[in-house]
């Protein structure tokens, strides 16, 4: 039994599904393996390095490819190259590396190449606090690369969810042929939690759809509303061209505004026509709530604890938690704003998520409170509870 099989709860006579102690970053690596990752290219950076460490040990054993490049730019580029050659490819990084990767992330989205980027966020700006948590990359994950690129960004709050959302990130990247980002809090990346992983045979894995037409008919950027859209790999008879330039349906560079508009539209439609498939939220004790906490990642855990205590004290408060942070859960947030009088948004940045709630707030009477912290410590349940009590 390999280490992977042992950890993945592959049911054997000896190996009943069992509880195990797993680190967040390790769960990401295991989720990637469960989803079928076979290429990792990256550059080590705290606090994401454990993902690379784990895969450097496991990938060669299963015939997958692991390579450490000279920097994060090269890491991300190698991932795109491998994906064009047919790989399920990923990289993992943190703030400074994520900044360096932005140009290539934009390329993957423009050229519609499936891949997954894991960003275990740390305090910034710049080198910041490498071993301390932050949620400072929420807007960068949306707008980090120049131009209007689509963004699918997932955000787990437990170790088990880190596993699940990694699998989902691969599935969405293959289905929508784009770069999907998984954001993780430093605390979660390094945290160990007792978890039971699912039997891998029960997981739904989406694999790349290969073209069914002969090569001379194949247009890899054909206007298509169906997902997944087919994508050939290099070396399989479909000798196609890929570029970061604006391109036509054959991938050839174009300056024609009519062709460019079609391309940009397709990128946009991927997201706006599939909001239901993409957006996942959790509601926690929102029944009859007059106060709502809107939080993601580690802040949602603090919020759950605070909400529990406040409910115990008789305060009508609940939590709305996005698992998909981009596209932003507009509809759920609007409903929340309609249903409650006060919304509290705790986050480890200067209000990056609160801006989105502000954007959706229609009623001038409803109150929005931004609770921020950027000193490298996490927001505690007591801090959220204090605000809940104040506004009650």
């Amino acid at each position: 039994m390999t280490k992977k099989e042992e950890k993945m709860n592959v049911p054997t006579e000896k190996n009943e599904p069992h509880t195990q102690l797993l680190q967040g970053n390790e769960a990401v690596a295991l989720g990637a393996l469960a989803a079928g990752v076979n290429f990792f290219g990256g550059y080590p950076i705290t606090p994401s390095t454990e993902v690379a460490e784990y895969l450097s040990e496991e990938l060669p054993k299963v015939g997958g490819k692991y390579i450490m490049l000279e920097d994060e730019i090269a890491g991300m580029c190698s991932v795109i190259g491998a994906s064009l050659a047919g790989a399920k490819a990923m990289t993992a990084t943190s703030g400074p590396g994520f900044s360096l990767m932005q140009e290539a992330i934009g390329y993957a989205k423009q050229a519609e190449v499936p891949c997954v980027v894991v960003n275990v966020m740390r305090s910034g700006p710049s080198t910041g606090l490498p071993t301390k948590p932050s949620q400072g990359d929420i807007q960068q994950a949306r707008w980090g690369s120049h131009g209007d690129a689509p963004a699918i960004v997932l955000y787990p709050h437990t170790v088990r969810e880190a596993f699940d959302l990694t699998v989902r990130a691969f599935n969405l990247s293959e289905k929508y042929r784009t770069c999907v980002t998984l954001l993780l809090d430093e605390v979660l990346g390094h945290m160990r939690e007792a978890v039971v992983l699912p039997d891998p045979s029960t997981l739904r894995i989406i694999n790349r759809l290969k073209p069914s037409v002969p090569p001379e008919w194949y247009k890899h950027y054909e206007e298509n509303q169906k997902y997944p859209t087919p994508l050939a790999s290099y070396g399989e008879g479909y000798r196609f061209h890929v570029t970061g330039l604006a391109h036509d349906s054959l991938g050839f560079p174009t300056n024609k505004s009519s062709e460019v508009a079609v391309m940009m539209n397709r990128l946009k439609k991927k997201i706006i026509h599939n909001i239901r498939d993409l957006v996942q939220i959790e509601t926690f004790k929102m029944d009859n709530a007059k106060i709502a906490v809107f939080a993601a990642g580690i802040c949602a855990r603090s919020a759950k604890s605070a909400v529990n205590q406040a409910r115990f004290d008789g305060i009508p408060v609940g939590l709305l938690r996005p698992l998909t942070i981009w596209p932003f859960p507009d509809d759920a947030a609007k409903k929340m704003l309609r249903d409650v009088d006060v919304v509290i948004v705790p986050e480890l940045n200067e209000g990056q998520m609160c801006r989105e709630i502000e954007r959706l707030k229609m009623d001038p009477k409803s109150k929005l409170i931004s609770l921020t912290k950027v000193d490298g410590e996490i927001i505690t349940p007591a801090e959220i509870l204090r605000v809940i009590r104040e506004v009650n």
Partner: protein
Amino acid sequence: MNRFRKEFRLSGSGGQGLIVAGIILAKAASNEGYKVTQTQSFGPEARGGSSRTDVVISNNEIYFPEAQSFDYLIALTQEACDKYLFDLKEDGLLLIDSNYVKNLSMTVNNIVEVDFSDITIEKLGTALPMNIVTLSCIVKLSNLISEKALERAIKEIMKPSIHEINIKAMKLGFELSEQAKMMQ
């Protein structure tokens, strides 16, 4: 069953093996079927600098993963003791190494004060397994985790080549806890 949430903080300086001890404690708790989270905080240094790990054990869903008011606090440096003592619960238990921690900034009801480092060197010939000695001592006093579960966790987390010395360290920790109980 009554709901409970017990919070441990293991603190000291980098290189004392506290994070490994925290992982072993978490593994042991997981072996016992509890919900558990283990988090850590460390500086950029691999050795030296301050280091701490939190283990939260509960029979219920754990939302906030860090320890805030400790049921058990291990402090192996004066700095760590000064920093975290105020967050010890009133009925919480403090465990310190008397060689390193000389002053307490407030009165503590339950305290185990032993020169762990000296005793570890004397009985085991090396100071390295002191993390397991102190961990085993506090595990025994906490009554949450069986000796068997802890032993299994040590064997699961540590390399086979150091199992023997660390099992000895565990037993030494248990002995010291008996003495501590008598002192109280």
